[in-house]
């Protein structure tokens, strides 16, 4: 009879970490669901929560589209072209990843409160305490993150396929559009979904730049913060539950859209 192998130290550590995560995250999720269910109907019908949901989804979607549009060509330049000062450029981009978000929010606040920011405001471009500021925060926080994800996807894609495409008549741009992007499809979808989710849940830097004003700059995380501050814990829990549902849907969508069994390039036994 086959006997069980004794688990190694590493597998015991892995199992312990998994158990800890399940305990902490699982209990938090259970607490949110338990606390949120009684007020869920009320929250779901609330005009304020509708506004926060709409604002969150809208700003996250707009910022993610801008981030992806900027990150793809930037990642291409960093991985495929002999641009000068590439290392310094990468370092500067990565720097924002290591800074606390509250600091990034503060830097944006200082920037847009400067004479230059006031000049923008005078020309009807108001960033501080406005939804545009939320998009701006998302851009600053998510652009380096998405760039890192896309860059890593481009680096792992075989450059020789683009070379071959060029010998077959493709320009570098056509090779990018017809070869590199489709080859990195799953990574790009994942990058979009992860960036969007991060934007949806962003709070610290947003609070610093635009604050949380009801029916003006109130996003879902902002709404949770406001309701907790005013002692409406049940509404806050219900709002958190809505965010949980959105996270579940994005995770599901991500799995469906990047399902390896739908990959036409799958290897079968040859």
């Amino acid at each position, binding site marked *: 009879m086959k006997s069980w192998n004794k688990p190694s130290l590493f597998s015991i550590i892995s199992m312990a970490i998994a158990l800890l995560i399940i305990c902490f995250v699982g209990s938090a999720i259970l607490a949110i669901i338990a606390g949120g269910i009684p007020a869920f109907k009320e929250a779901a019908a609330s005009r304020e929560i509708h506004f926060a949901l709409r604002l969150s989804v809208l700003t996250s979607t707009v910022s993610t589209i801008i981030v992806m549009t900027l990150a793809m060509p930037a990642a291409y330049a960093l991985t495929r072209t002999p641009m000068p000062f590439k290392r310094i450029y990468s370092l500067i981009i990565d720097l924002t990843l290591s800074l606390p978000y509250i600091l990034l929010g503060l830097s944006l606040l200082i920037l847009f409160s400067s004479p230059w920011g006031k000049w923008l405001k005078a020309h009807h471009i108001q960033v501080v305490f406005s939804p545009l500021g939320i998009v701006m925060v998302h851009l600053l926080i998510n652009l380096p993150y998405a760039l890192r994800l896309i860059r890593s996807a481009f680096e792992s894609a075989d450059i020789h396929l683009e070379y071959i495409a060029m010998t077959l008549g493709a320009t570098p741009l056509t090779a990018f559009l017809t070869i590199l992007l489709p080859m990195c499809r799953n990574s790009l979808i994942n990058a979009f979904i992860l960036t969007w989710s991060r934007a949806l849940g962003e709070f610290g830097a947003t609070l610093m730049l635009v604050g949380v004003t009801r029916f003006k700059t109130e996003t879902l995380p902002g709404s949770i913060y406001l309701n907790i501050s005013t002692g409406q814990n049940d509404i806050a829990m219900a709002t958190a539950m809505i965010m949980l549902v959105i996270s579940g849907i994005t995770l599901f969508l991500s799995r469906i859209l990047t399902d390896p069994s739908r990959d036409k390039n*799958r290897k079968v036994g040859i």
Partner: protein
Amino acid sequence: MSAQLEIKDFSVTRGNFSLQPVSLSVEEGEIFAILGRTGSGKTVLLEAASGMFPGDTGEILLNGTNICRIAPRERQTGFVYQDHGLFPHMDFFHNIAYGLKMHKVPRNEQIRRVHEIMDAFSIRHISHQYPGTLSGGERQRAALARALILRPVLLLLDEPFSALDPATRRRIHEQLLSVHRQYKCTILFVTHDFQEAVTLSDRIAILLDGRLETVVESGQLLTNHYNEKVEEFLGRTIDHE
């Protein structure tokens, strides 16, 4: 016959590797092999000829025109890698039709030409299959068909048969020779297999450690005498006494 491809004092550096100035000429319609160990610079020379990166010195003339400053898409070269280099997100039909599409060939003409070359390589039955699902031999034939469909002046092959079993390799050799007769293109191919070089090519260049050592008629590869380095590469010991 006239020299169709002329490489004159061409050198290139890639990372830590440096290809010393190489000069050789390939005649029109010739099958020319570059033989050498792994890491000797064979692929670098081929890739530079196709325009994948610029050289340091020298020039590459194709039909008398220096192609060093010409974009890869305008060089009229086809390229096939050892690992086929097929686009994984396209079926065989669209892989082979890719070049025609890039050159804006009408759709009907694309279909006709793709089917014609698929028949020549006996792969029409798998036209809607994806590269990841088929055998190495089928993938290699598709890669050759894709490179040849634009009727390139020069076909560059980078160890195209090394990953195939002997029977498949023999079959594809025959198909390549037959297609070469039909399409009349010049072929420059890289290999480390003496037998393959002798079987397929008219002439052979031996490239070792980034330096071109000699160019010989393929029939004389094993009968000629060379310097110590080449003799060692060919597996022959030199009696120094």
